[in-house]
């Protein structure tokens, strides 16, 4: 009796491992290439996808949005990754965008600061050093301390790109992490800084931009303008491998929402 039972157990285990390993029977490698800002989102997605489809390996190399898009157009990778919308000429060449996430950047000031509503132009002027005193914006007569991130940070490149101040920013201080920026804005009444929307807490005030309060809802409906899409790019007329299609479906499906949120981005749908 005991023997029969153990045989059955072994058989059951064998069957369960078989089904566990094979997933839906898909296997293969997906090569993705592009935006460095998407590293966190891609990390979360590939990790979650690995659990679902253990036989599919997803490779990610961060080379920048531009080379990711040209990579997929040239056929050197399966899926291109772009942290900006596609340009017309890229779409003319057959690039197709699948928006998987939205990335909002909040502009934060100290809670003591009377200024709580800025236009995009004012923000650009502050960060390029044209406006240097809070009184010019209706605040108290105090110099503005412009806080930002170090070169190479995804938040920095996103902010500068969207506000249109790429490489033109005059920072008072630079910090190595989002937490440092928020902590230092919280402790300096003169400070203004930026941080990924998901990292903003009650120790700082996220200013309204053009009158719109930043938040998941306003990022989703597009009314909050300091945001950018995270796009997976494919080429029209080129059939994706089964593995690549599975990954794309996973990334743009509802299942991915929690991982995208966990990685600090906003789920678009």
């Amino acid at each position, binding site marked *: 009796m005991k023997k029969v039972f153990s045989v059955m157990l072994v058989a059951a285990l064998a069957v369960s491992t078989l089904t566990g390993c094979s997933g839906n029977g898909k296997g293969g490698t997906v090569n993705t290439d592009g935006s*460095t800002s998407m590293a966190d989102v891609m990390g979360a997605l590939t990790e979650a996808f690995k659990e679902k489809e253990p036989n599919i390996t997803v490779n990610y190399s961060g080379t920048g949005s531009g080379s990711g898009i040209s990579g997929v157009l040239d056929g050197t990778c399966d899926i291109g990754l772009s942290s900006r919308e596609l340009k017309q000429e890229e779409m003319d060449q057959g690039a197709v965008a699948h928006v998987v996430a939205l990335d909002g950047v909040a502009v934060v000031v100290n809670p003591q600061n009377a200024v709580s509503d800025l236009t995009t132009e004012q923000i650009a002027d502050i960060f390029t050093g044209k406006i240097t005193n809070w009184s010019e914006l209706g605040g108290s007569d105090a110099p503005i*301390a412009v806080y930002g991130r170090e070169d190479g940070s*995804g938040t920095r490149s996103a902010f500068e790109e969207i506000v249109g101040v790429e*490489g033109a920013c005059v*920072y008072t*201080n630079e910090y*190595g992490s989002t937490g440092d920026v928020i902590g230092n804005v919280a*402790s300096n009444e003169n400070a203004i800084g930026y941080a990924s929307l998901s990292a903003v807490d009650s120790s700082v005030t996220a200013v309204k931009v053009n009158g719109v309060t930043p938040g998941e809802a306003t990022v989703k409906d597009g009314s909050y303008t300091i945001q950018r899409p995270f796009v997976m790019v494919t080429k029209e007329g080129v059939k994706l491998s089964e593995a690549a299609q599975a990954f794309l479906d996973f990334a743009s499906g509802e299942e991915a929402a929690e991982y995208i949120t966990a990685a600090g981005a906003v789920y678009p749908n």
Partner: protein
Amino acid sequence: MQVLFTLCGLIAVGFVLLITIYLVISGIPAIRKIGLFRFLFGKTWAAGQNQYGILPLILTSLYGTAGAIVIGVPIGFFTAVFLAKVAPRKVANVIRPAVSLLAGIPSVVYGLVGMCVLVPALRNWLHLPAGDSLLAAIIVLAVMILPSIISLSETALEAVPREYEEASLALGATKLETYFRVSAPAAKSGIAAAVVLGIGRAIGEAMAIMMVAGNVANMPALTRSVRFLTTGISIELNYSQDGSLQRQALFSIGLVLFFFIMLINAFLNLVLKREKED
């Protein structure tokens, strides 16, 4: 037994060799791509615009260290004279442990106190937008190098033979004249070693000054945010792409820093050697 000791000695040498070789191998490619002159004397560091000039970082490290020495050495030297010669034993027994405690405080704690006390104070006194500046870094560094300057100078002063001082006093010199005209010159190589060690500590410090210096790669100015060689590496390392020119350039900064430390060490050895010959 001898084999074991030799082995231990070789391990230390091995690590030095390993680090040296690694730094040279990983530091050279970026210098080659950028060009040695443009790398060392370029005035702009902006990885986003592909500009990798570390002159602001080098100057900041030099000015910051010099500033710390200018403030720290007089205070440290006078404290050492006080401890070795002037202070009553009871007072010295309170100050000495305090100094060694200062040496044991982790640098991140110096940085934290600097960030929470010094930086806001400078902001209010000097009406700056933010208090993070070269000045704040210099003050923190000056405090950090005090313990090594004090204890080394004190040891050197105490090693001066009593007869020298007694002879000076017997000739009618006052006590103060004796300390500064007889004891200090007799201990000068030990004091010089203390200063060099202080320089070494100041130029290699990263954590504490990263928290108070502001970290923008400006040309150094006392009240402006600055970036040191050390902090230049640590602040950008996290987000630089593996294998990118930015990452390679950070290793090149490490190589430059290593070169500075080697110079200081060689100088220290020279000073100590001269002391032995005296």
